[in-house]
């Protein structure tokens, strides 16, 4: 029996499946991720700020602002995870990166952090804008990654699913 003319095709094209976790499972995992992002975006910074404030030192950013920005990042990150199998993943990735970028920019314009040492006559101005500007590389890169995913999903829907959720 001779091989068909297109016999070489199966050597480069293979049948690969994907297994998308159920919505309930994704929501459950997103809930656990919410706990981590709550610690990272809200609990930790708010604790540090409250501690500094309790020592009589002016804080560079309000606790309310940190909480609001943190909530926005938490919700968007969780939604992005839950909707990862859908075409909303790319736009949500862009949104998360955009919000994080805006948050960092908001912190940059508050630099330098000026405070008076309690009980003394010394005042300190601490600049941290350079560090934050380097940190802004992270959302900038994620922003472009989100754009690429959006383009991919628009051009070839579900093409990435076998690689995101291999069976």
């Amino acid at each position: 029996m001779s091989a068909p003319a297109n016999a070489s095709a199966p050597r480069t094209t293979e049948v690969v499946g994907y297994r998308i976790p159920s919505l309930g499972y994704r929501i459950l995992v997103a809930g656990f991720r919410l706990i981590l992002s709550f610690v990272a975006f809200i609990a930790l910074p708010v604790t540090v700020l409250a501690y500094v404030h309790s020592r009589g030192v002016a804080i560079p950013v309000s606790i309310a602002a940190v909480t609001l920005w943190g909530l926005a990042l938490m919700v968007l990150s969780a939604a992005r995870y839950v909707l990862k199998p859908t075409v909303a993943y790319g736009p949500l990735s862009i949104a998360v990166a955009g919000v994080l970028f805006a948050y960092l920019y908001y912190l940059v314009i508050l630099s330098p952090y000026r405070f008076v040492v309690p009980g003394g006559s010394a005042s300190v101005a601490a600049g941290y804008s350079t560090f934050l500007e380097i940190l802004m590389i992270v959302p900038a890169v994620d922003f472009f990654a989100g754009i690429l995913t959006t383009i991919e999903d628009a051009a070839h829907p579900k093409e990435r699913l076998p690689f995101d959720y291999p069976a």
Partner: protein
Amino acid sequence: MAALVVPTYRQPPGIYRAARALRWVGGIVLVLLIVYAATVAVSAYEAAHATVESRNLSNVLVANGDLDISGSFTLSNPGWYAIEGVQLTARLANTSGVYLGTATAGPQTVDGGSSALFPISIALPIAGSTAAESLLFVDQYIDVNAWANVTYAYLFPLSVTLAESRSWGAPFEGFHATVGTPSMVGGSLFAPVTLLWTNHASFVEQGSISFIVDSAGGATCGGGSDPMDVAPDSAYDETEPVTLNPGCSPLGGELLASVTIDGSSTPLPPEPIP
């Protein structure tokens, strides 16, 4: 879980790989920055216990008509990262707010886990009636406005400003000279000259004090010289009979004194003789 099987390529599409690579880059940068920030935070906590040890900051030496304030301080950096470009500038003004001078130190780098010595010096000319002259004779408060700029852990610039008043002990606090009533002793005319002050400086005034008594017309009636060895917080109160030149009356004149310490002579303000 819903399982679907569709034909596809095992090799991910290029755009997918590009997006994944970007996310990896972002993740690696994030992890590196978090680790860096954590080490900076721990190091800064250590550096917050940095000690500034002053040495001889209150040393005062009157020399060449200048009031020299020199000293040094040692800055220790127990943190991991270097404190770079440490530069200190201190602006001094007297109680009345009159500018006296500026002292600077640095720039210098204090590596992590080490310390560095910063010498500082300020020379205040006291000849004539400059604002600094009062520092010799009047205890007062000196306004010190100091600021220091440093860079910590390469990325974090810090600027520290300090404004405070420091008490100043004058080396010739309350300097006063009086010429007593002349009297004839053994055919010569003598006048008792009394010099008194209190040393409120931190150094020992060791040397000599010399003086001349001038008449109202500016003629020199007489003079004298005495050794002096005045410890801090001690008073100098000496009376010496001075032989006056015949026909020279000190009334209405003035007494001019100068101190010599370490071979350098500094004039003291003229004291009028009533």
